[in-house]
């Protein structure tokens, strides 16, 4: 008998409408697989959301600052005893000499607001203010000696703890281990806040100001290091763009197929993958130890970042040179242009949007890079002075935005963490603008052949 006895039992019940167990299993596996994929993307996007919300939640506070408005009487008896308005004599009085004026103004503010003074010593009351307050008053007096004797309204920075209290970072419980401020101060702050003496305002000095010492987070700003980053980016732009474009033109249009070209190609591919900190080591030993360029200078930082971004720029420039169709070159050669004329007059202008896009992306990458800057001494340097000129901007020590952020994070003070996150918001704004410009350039000018 050739008719086989198939086990028909299981099959007999199968139907096109009801799925059998195996198909169900396979479909379930299919659904699971798809869910894994969706889950992976969801987790990735969730991380992005968490990152962005924590940046904003922690950083926005840096753009608000607590100020104390005081009417300080610039008493002649205290700061200009001779009454001659002699600037040299006024300058001799240190910030210490201005403290009594501020104490008096604070006491006056208490009386005006009808609040009892819980402290016997002026020093305790003054703890509500930043220790930079006296210096602010002194700077004002030196700038306007004719106002001595008047009563002038000052918006003085509150101390970082008062600021933290109004932002919810400092509470009465957390002050129990704190020597600088007592809960009594906070009661005062509440009363003052009601009276409008203590107020929160937009923190412009944070965006334009200089870094401050470790004990005065309320005074620290990112302005000077922003300039440092700007000078560095100028160096990167001036070095990396011409060299990168020249190198790409050679490799894409002229290089013969030989070992030398291969060597260059391999080197570029490897440099693109070398960790950024190794470029920092290179900068330290070549630019600082060997060539004796000044430490922490934006020039050195810019050179190191140039070497780091060159591979990125070369790779994107080559891609955009490659995308110019050969017919353009052939047409130019056909009407008698030399190879060089073909490239510089026809291929390069057509590839320019792509090259600029790549350069901007390279610059954005360089702007956010921190590790190499640590090694050339940009961290630990307190960037407290604006560069005085163009040469000074390149040659004198400065910080850079990411280095400044790291420096603040290192100080391990909640008030400085807030500054660091605020700095990150500014840094990301810059990066976002650069990327948007790159996208617009690509959309508007890139030609598809």
């Amino acid at each position, binding site marked *: 008998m050739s008719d086989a006895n198939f086990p028909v039992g299981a099959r007999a019940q199968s139907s096109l409408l009801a799925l059998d167990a195996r198909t169900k299993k396979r*479909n379930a596996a*299919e659904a*699971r*697989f*798809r869910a*894994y*994929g*969706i889950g*992976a*993307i969801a987790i*990735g*996007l969730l*991380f*992005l959301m*968490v*990152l962005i919300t*924590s940046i904003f939640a922690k950083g926005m506070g840096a753009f608000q600052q607590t100020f104390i408005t005081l009417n300080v009487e610039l008493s002649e008896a205290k700061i200009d005893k001779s009454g001659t308005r002699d600037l040299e004599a006024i300058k001799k009085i240190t910030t210490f000499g201005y403290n009594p004026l501020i104490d008096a103004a604070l006491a006056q503010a208490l009386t005006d607001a009808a609040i009892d003074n819980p402290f016997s010593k002026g020093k305790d009351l003054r703890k509500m203010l930043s220790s930079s307050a006296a210096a602010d008053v002194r700077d004002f007096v030196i700038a306007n000696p004719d106002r001595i004797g008047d009563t002038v309204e000052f918006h003085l920075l509150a101390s970082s703890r008062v600021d933290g209290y109004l932002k919810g970072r400092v509470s009465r419980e957390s002050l129990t281990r704190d020597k600088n401020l007592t809960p009594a101060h906070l009661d005062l702050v509440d009363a003052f806040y009601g009276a409008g003496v203590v107020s929160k305002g937009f923190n412009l000095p944070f965006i334009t100001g200089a870094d401050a010492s470790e004990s005065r987070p309320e005074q620290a700003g990112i302005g000077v290091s922003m300039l440092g980053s700007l000078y560095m980016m100028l160096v990167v732009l001036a070095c990396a763009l011409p*060299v*990168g474009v*020249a*190198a790409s033109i*050679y*490799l894409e249009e002229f290089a013969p197929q030989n070992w030398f070209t291969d*060597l*260059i190609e391999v*080197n570029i*591919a*490897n*440099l693109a*993958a070398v*960790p*950024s*900190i*190794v*470029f920092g*080591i290179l900068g*330290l*030993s*070549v630019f600082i*130890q*060997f*060539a004796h360029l000044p430490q922490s200078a934006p020039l050195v930082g810019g050179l190191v970042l140039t070497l780091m971004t*060159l591979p990125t720029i070369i790779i994107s420039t080559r891609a955009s040179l490659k995308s110019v169709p050969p017919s353009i070159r052939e047409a130019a050669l056909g009407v008698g242009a*030399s190879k*060089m004329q073909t490239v510089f007059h026809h291929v390069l202008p057509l590839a320019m949007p792509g090259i600029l896009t790549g350069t901007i992306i390279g610059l*954005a990458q360089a702007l*956010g*890079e*921190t*590790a190499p800057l*640590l*090694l050339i001494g940009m961290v*630990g340097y307190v960037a407290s002075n604006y560069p005085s000129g163009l040469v000074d901007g390149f040659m004198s020590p400065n910080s850079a935005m*990411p280095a400044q952020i*790291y420096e603040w*994070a290192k100080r391990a003070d909640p008030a400085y*963490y807030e500054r660091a996150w605020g700095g990150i918001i500014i*840094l990301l704004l810059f*990066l976002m603008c650069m*990327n948007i410009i790159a996208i617009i350039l690509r959309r508007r000018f890139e030609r598809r052949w």
Partner: protein
Amino acid sequence: MSALWLLIIILALAATGFILGRGRAVASVGGDRRKLHSLPNYYGFNVAMLALVPALLVLAVWVVIQPIMINANVSGHIPDALYSDAGQLNLIMSDVNRVADGLGDALRQGVITAEGIHTLDPETSDLRALLGSVGVAIGSDISADILTAARLLRDQSTTGQRAMTFVVLVVASLGFLAAMRMTSGTFRARNTVEYGVKLLLIGAASLAILTTVGIVLSLIFNTISFFGMFPAADFLFGTTWSPEGRGGSEHLGILPLLWGTLYISFVALLVAVPIGLFAAIYLSEYASRTTRAFAKPLLEVLAGIPTIVYGLFALTVVGPLLVNVFGADGLGWMQGARSVMTAGLVMGIMLIPFVSSLSDDIINAVPQAMRDGSYGLGATQSETVRQVVLPAALPGIAGAVLLAASRAIGETMIVVMGAGAAARLDLNPFEAMTTVTAKIVSQLTGDSDFASPEALVAFALGMTLFVLTLGLNILALYIVRKYREQYE
């Protein structure tokens, strides 16, 4: 004359050369441009190029070489009794340089005359106050030897500057004259200029080689001088890392650092590879066009965020969060916010887009015909992915994972801020550990001078890092090339 002025002068010379050369060429054919071999501008460019480029090269080389030569020469004149090792000599030389700079400033501000510098006597006059008055602060008193050396340095650099001015100007004018002599109607100016431009292009392309050579040399020389002070075997096989050891005993073993590096990278890959790979599969195989256009750029935003942001995220968000769960109040496995887990998790997040976009490209490169064949045999979509697409894309994906690993090993900011500073050989992922990159930063940003083993060890660490990442990259390339399935 300073280098900046020289630069301006030769630029001006080149500009005049352009106008004169162009004029001469046109004049040589009696104003009939058709008789010229090249366009008139090329004759101008030729003169400008020959006047500018050689002089510029001489200037650049001179500016770099002169201080090095003079420094070497002057340090030979410092009495041996003053220093015992290279580090002290460096300190003395930096003093000498500052004194010489200060004397220059004083001369420029009219505080002192040129004769005055030569008759200065450190015994009778207060040099520190003098230099302080022009804004140069000197830490210690200036001895006669340092003053002599500073004078020598000043004299030699003045002579050097003069020689440089002379040589550069001569080279520039020679180039200028030679090019002017060449210029005539039959001279093939365009070919010469294009040849010159091509040399410039080759020079720019060679910068990549120069950078690599610079990296390798700076690592090798410092590593060798480190091994001169510290036994190589102790570095490579030592299991303790304590640079400031008690009683003068130092332990600079790399193994704990390597362990920390690899452990953190492993945790990072554990996060990044599954998420990145599944995201890539979903985006390339399942997602609709709109989902893809929306999710892919958003994921790639993660790659564009600077590492300092991730570092701070690890330090102030992820670390405290983990402590809440695994710390003393929770499971009790974790002591501080900094740990392998903190750094690894955050690094994993950073690497997700890296893995996903690389894998996405590779999966997209698998030809559609293979998928169609699989569907034709009745396979579901996931079976096709698992049994056809992934095996075909496997070498590329392995390469992508290796590249991600190399990224993780070389990452600095996240581990500096999230991983801790204690070098430990431990299995608990909630312990603080440290990595090669974090130690490079801490050894080179401290106060120790560059000649001590504690600072030089950073170069040996850098060398290890360089070799490790380079090896991984080459391996990745090799795997991709060797096992790549060639379709079409």
